[in-house]
């Protein structure tokens, strides 16, 4: 397992330089626009997308087939991608915290933002990985886009529709209390995702 993670982290080395340049660019954008959340969102998405990039590198080299001839199980290969996603979300979390600390954002707000962005990252890989394992990168990429855009679309349309239909949003207090349930919901989604990926991968033929 450690070998697999080392492989991914080294294999992604070219991406780090690109990321660094992008981060500097988006810091400037954030500073000029004064929108702190924007930079945070960019960092989280770009970091967690590296998991997907590592999978397309693997697919291109037909690495999985090769790795399975080593003392590596199918389970190891699946779990290593979740671990990589978690690790990268963690790194994004730290970058976000540092950034917000330097912006002198209130401690509570900064932490809240970093945590929710990490949550979104983890949600993203949990939704996407089973599809990528099942359909491979080419078809998987398309599905990944749908996973990203459909919820965004629903939220945007919904936000427009709710007032028009004469519905009111729930009381902010109710929404705030929901926040405490979310980590548990996320945990369940992660668990279901891992179990499905393992099952999909167990039956995969190379």
């Amino acid at each position, binding site marked *: 397992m450690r070998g697999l993670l080392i492989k991914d982290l080294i294999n992604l080395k070219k991406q780090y330089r690109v990321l660094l340049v992008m981060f500097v660019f988006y810091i400037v954008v954030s500073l000029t626009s004064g929108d702190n959340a924007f930079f945070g969102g960019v960092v989280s998405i770009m970091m967690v997308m590296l998991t997907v990039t590592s999978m397309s590198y693997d697919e291109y080299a037909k690495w999985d*087939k090769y790795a399975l001839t080593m*003392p590596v199980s199918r389970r190891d290969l699946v779990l290593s991608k979740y671990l990589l996603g978690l690790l990268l979300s963690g790194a994004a979390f730290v970058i976000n915290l540092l950034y917000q600390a330097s912006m002198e954002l209130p401690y509570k707000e900064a932490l809240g933002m970093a945590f929710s962005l990490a949550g979104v990252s983890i949600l993203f890989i949990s939704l996407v990985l089973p599809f990528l394992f099942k359909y491979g990168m080419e078809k998987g990429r398309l599905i990944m886009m749908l996973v990203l855009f459909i919820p965004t679309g629903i939220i945007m349309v919904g936000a427009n529709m709710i007032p028009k239909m004469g519905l009111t949003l729930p009381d902010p207090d109710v929404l705030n209390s929901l926040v405490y349930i979310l980590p548990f919901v996320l945990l369940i989604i992660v668990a279901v995702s891992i179990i499905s990926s393992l099952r999909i991968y167990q039956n995969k033929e*190379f």
Partner: protein
Amino acid sequence: MDYALELADVSKKYEGFALEQVNIKLSRGYIMGFIGENGAGKTTTIKLILDLIKRDAGRISVLGKDNLTELSQVKEHLGVVMEDSYFPDNLTAVNVNSICKNLYKTWDEAKYESLRKQFSLPGGKIIKEYSKGMKMKLSIAAALSHGTKLLILDEATSGLDPIVREEILDVFLEFIQDEKNSVFMSSHIISDLEKACDYITFIHQGKILFSRNKDELLEDYGVLKCSEEEFAGIDASAVKGYRKNSFGVEALVLKDKIRGRVTIDRASIEDIMLYHIKGAKRQ
């Protein structure tokens, strides 16, 4: 008997292709060549051995362990080189060492380094910039550097120039000097196999035509050259395949069964394979 590799009645059905009742036994200490045309089922067989695809029937054991339930116990000692799968592009040969060190408990850094130098693989160049031969050499270096006892090669020498193939074959021959080590190699470059192998297994349309000692095989078969009239007088059971040309008939025959004064040339493995597949059959 303790086999390095044993397949018993292994079958796998695809649409339009089936591997049927494959039986292969490779004793420890030997090199077996696995020959057949493209699409005869070589890669499928190797994938079945490695549990990369699911079989429909039969039993496979690798270094004495069942390949479905106990393969993880022997993977430390299994070296595999496949034609089309490598370490990902952005890694270097030095990176491969740090990765494998963490994947194999049995990883032998010194051995890997010496093979890397022997193959003159640069430490810092990324694999993306490697030639095909270099990629293959890197895979082979990795495959031999972890207390390897069984080496499985799928077309590992195809697509390489004769110099590189020679170099690689020498490494295999050195590996086999240790009598506990075995090699199972598929290839359609028959001359390589003729040089290196102790046993030849021939697969055709998903079925094993024979799996035998190479020297016995070469001893048994011969290429008969004669006129059509002479050919008509020859026992049909002796003829494995023949073709007619303007000078008469050339046929692959079992030498033992031929009586009388005829010329029989030595048959190469390539002849044996070609006549089995392409040669006309006598009724």
